[in-house]
């Protein structure tokens, strides 16, 4: 009888209480840092979080297609050279009579994103 009680006592103390309970799960986290060459316009858009409109005036005599990449990477239709979508691109030139007066046409590009 005494040995049975000792046996019972062993089972009461030994299995769980000594080692505690534990369950675990594993996740793999992947991370990286990339550099993206975005236009300054896109950066402004990211900053403001809304559509913005900027007007860019090119040197007289320039064609819209001559907008240098350094000038916000603007192209005159659709997408910029960096692939940013533009919702609206408007190109204006000065009226013809100004040109007739010997002035070179002024080229203004309005970009709305």
């Amino acid at each position, binding site marked *: *009888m005494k040995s*049975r*009680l000792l046996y*019972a006592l062993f*089972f*009461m103390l*030994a*299995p*769980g*209480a000594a*080692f*505690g*309970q*534990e*369950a*675990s*799960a*594993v*996740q*793999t*986290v*992947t*991370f*990286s*840092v*990339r*550099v*993206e*060459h*975005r236009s*300054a316009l*896109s*950066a*402004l858009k*990211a*900053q403001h979080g809304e559509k913005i409109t900027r007007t860019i005036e090119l040197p007289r005599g320039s064609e819209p297609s001559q907008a240098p990449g350094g000038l916000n990477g603007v192209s005159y239709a659709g997408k910029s050279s960096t692939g940013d979508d533009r919702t609206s691109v408007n190109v204006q030139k000065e009226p013809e009579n100004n040109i007739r007066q010997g002035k070179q046409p002024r080229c203004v590009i309005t970009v709305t994103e």
Partner: protein
Amino acid sequence: MKVFWGGWFAALGIVVSSVQAIAGGGAAANQLLFMEVKGVTRLSVSGNPLPLVITKAGDALSPVSVIDGSTHYSLVTNLENVRISASINRQMPQGTSLSVRLESLRGTSCGEVDLSQATSPRVLVSRIGRGTEQGSRIFYTFSASREIREMQSQSRTITLTLTD
């Protein structure tokens, strides 16, 4: 997922005595019954988080941290006052950090806990009561200092542990 069933709960020994008293003489027989309710702890996750990618445009406006909350965890326990802790298998690279936050309905979340150097477990949720919790969200935040210009993809293993 690893599940460990142990016998935390005490085994109960009950002596059942059956006594037959017979006038003028007696006989007795004893039986020892063992009953046990084992402690249960189960923890599972829904999968791996999406890649945490910081995209820098090379200017001061760049974001320096990203958050993923696409994964969930579930737990079952019949114990009181258990906790979830987490550890990382290897320290994060210099100039970066990784922190984690667990939502909890049954326990007390410790909020965002930095695991960047946590090769030994850090508590994420404490005082979890008996019961189940399902679909609670896990949020990872990866941050990089502005000095980090570019870093190839790396990974770390995070071990979540439910323990009493």
